[in-house]
């Protein structure tokens, strides 16, 4: 635990530094845009192109700031053993921090916001690890262009979790049947069990349900 707290502390400090880096990039690019705004089109023929470039820089600053914000919050997770938190926000955090995984497998991770907060009291680091684990398990096997949709579900008091629905070119039930029969599924089930959680298919066999013990 000390080791993960240490990694978290370094990460938190560096996300703070990165936010300053992004702030300087935004202000410098903003100043360039301000100056460009004063230029006559005839005096500077590349004005349009430069403005497009500034727009791209701004988009990347927004992207970086969102990642840094989530990474900063994530870096503090190992500091607490138990914490009451909304699974909607946790799912959102992991999806943002898993963008590299989704891009490299050409699949989309989408969080469907539940109508109300779904409060989890599980170990926050384990919760995040298991959410990432299911994404890591499914992303390479569901096929390019597919979607993994996650939704927090309050199953019953003291037993919260989330559902995982896959939108793939082949039918969901066929795909799930194939995944559940695969050789790595048992290992995944055991991994969840070892962390006091469970994973299995829904009653309709069209999605997966993950439950966390409290």
């Amino acid at each position, binding site marked *: 635990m000390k080791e993960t707290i240490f990694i978290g502390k370094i990460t938190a400090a560096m996300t*703070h530094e990165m936010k300053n880096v992004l702030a300087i990039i935004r*202000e410098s690019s903003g*100043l360039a845009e301000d100056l460009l705004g004063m230029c006559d089109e005839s005096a500077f023929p590349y004005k349009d192109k430069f403005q497009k470039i500034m727009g791209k820089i701004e988009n990347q600053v927004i992207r970086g700031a969102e990642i840094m914000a989530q990474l900063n919050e994530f870096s503090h997770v190992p500091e607490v053993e138990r914490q009451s938190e909304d699974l909607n926000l946790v799912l959102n955090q992991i999806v943002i921090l898993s963008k590299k995984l989704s891009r490299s497998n050409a699949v989309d991770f989408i969080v469907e916001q539940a109508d109300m907060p779904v409060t989890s009291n599980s170990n926050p680091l384990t919760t995040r690890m298991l959410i990432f684990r299911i994404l890591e398990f499914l992303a390479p096997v569901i096929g390019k262009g597919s979607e993994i949709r996650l939704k927090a579900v309050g199953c019953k008091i003291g037993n919260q979790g989330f559902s995982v629905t896959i939108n793939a070119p082949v039918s969901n039930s066929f795909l799930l049947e194939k995944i559940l029969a695969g050789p790595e599924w048992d290992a995944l089930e055991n991994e969840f069990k070892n962390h006091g959680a469970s994973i299995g298919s829904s009653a309709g066999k069209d999605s997966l349900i993950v439950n966390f013990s409290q």
Partner: protein
Amino acid sequence: MNDWKVLLVDDERDFALTLAERLGMRGIKVNTAFSGQEALDLLETYQPDVMVLDLMMPGMSGSTVLRKVRGLYPNIEVILLTGLSSTAEGASGVSQGAFDFLTKPLQIENLIEKIGLAVRKRSADEAGQEK
């Protein structure tokens, strides 16, 4: 907007100087300080309407500067800047007397809007004191 006087305090020199230049281009008079102590020294001779203050600075922290400014110059409104994603520290600053807070990287339009609101509050407070 031309009458607004702002003191921008941030140890990130490139950030402070560039932001100051951009605010200046929009008609706001800006002075900069790169540490808490430098800001307090400057306040002995320069009284801004609003101080824009980074919370996380080496040496004297933004929170300490905020406390001193609230004690010595209660008419100066303080807007805090934080690089932290959590709004907890900014909110804690507001409970200690800051006017408001913004998270870096900030949008200049948001900062100008907050400076304007802070200037208006200062004017209203001063008018109230005169009555």
